[in-house]
């Protein structure tokens, strides 16, 4: 990962610590977002993308990762119907949420940050994005971090695709 931010000690240790919440941070729509780090399997450079016909805009395509075929989701499309370009070799985060294993693309993947549970606050009522996807806001030394509800996001993506 390009950058590892330390709010407390080692963010990797926070993955197993009840005193810390580990978040995986990325940049999207010019803002900083995060998902819970335990949902992120790895960050890799995406292989050649195979685009799918009749796919919803948020489904960029599929690629072969060590023999496993993964779908690539564009978070910016889901949140604000804006496109994120995915260049050959761009990094994607492989996440697992329940039965869903897929790759997420964002403008930039920053890395892990760990915060104490007290740094997590309920979503503000004035949040400009679609609040249905916002789980909480983490206060960090670099400013507030919008923590996305990834399972909800994937579920809504699935529902949007089937209802379109």
């Amino acid at each position: 990962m390009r950058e590892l931010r330390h709010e407390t000690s080692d963010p990797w240790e926070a993955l197993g610590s009840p005193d810390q919440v580990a978040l995986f941070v990325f940049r999207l729509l010019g803002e900083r977002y995060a998902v819970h780090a335990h949902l992120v399997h790895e960050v890799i450079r995406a292989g050649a993308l195979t685009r799918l016909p009749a796919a919803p805009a948020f489904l960029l395509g599929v690629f072969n990762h060590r023999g496993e075929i993964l779908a690539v989701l564009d978070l910016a499309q889901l949140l604000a119907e804006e496109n994120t370009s995915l260049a050959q070799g761009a990094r994607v985060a492989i996440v697992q949420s329940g039965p869903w294993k897929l790759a997420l693309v964002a403008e930039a993947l920053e890395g892990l940050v760990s915060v104490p549970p007290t740094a997590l606050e309920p979503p503000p009522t004035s949040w400009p994005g679609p609040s249905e996807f916002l789980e909480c806001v983490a206060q960090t030394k670099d400013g507030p971090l919008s923590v996305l509800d990834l399972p909800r996001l994937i579920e809504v993506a699935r529902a949007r695709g089937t209802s379109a």
Partner: protein
Amino acid sequence: MIFGPREVRANERGIVVFDLGGRRHAVEAGTVERIVTREEDGWIRSTVLGRPEHARRGLVTTLDGRPRTLAVDEVLGVERVPADSIAPLPEVARLTLRTRGIAGLVARDDELLLLVDLPELIRESEEESTSDA
């Protein structure tokens, strides 16, 4: 059929690889009755895969007891591939694609080919033609 039942081993699948609109795709050989070269009226030219640029070949399948032909630009080969090189679509894709014409994917060399469900692709195209009419 392109392959007879004894010509493909249990751990292999037969596929026809073709070019359509500048992209390579595959179809299960067992669903292709024959490959034809004479361009005819009635070929299916518009599907979710797009339209052929040259329509030099036709893949004939049987749908509801009648032959139907998908126009493609070129047939690139008829191959046996390991059965485990064919995978279903990832669940998110399977649930959100607005087509029934893609059955899965074929990992071949360094590329992933769409595995086309030929009868469903044609059925879908004909349904859309009917609803547009």
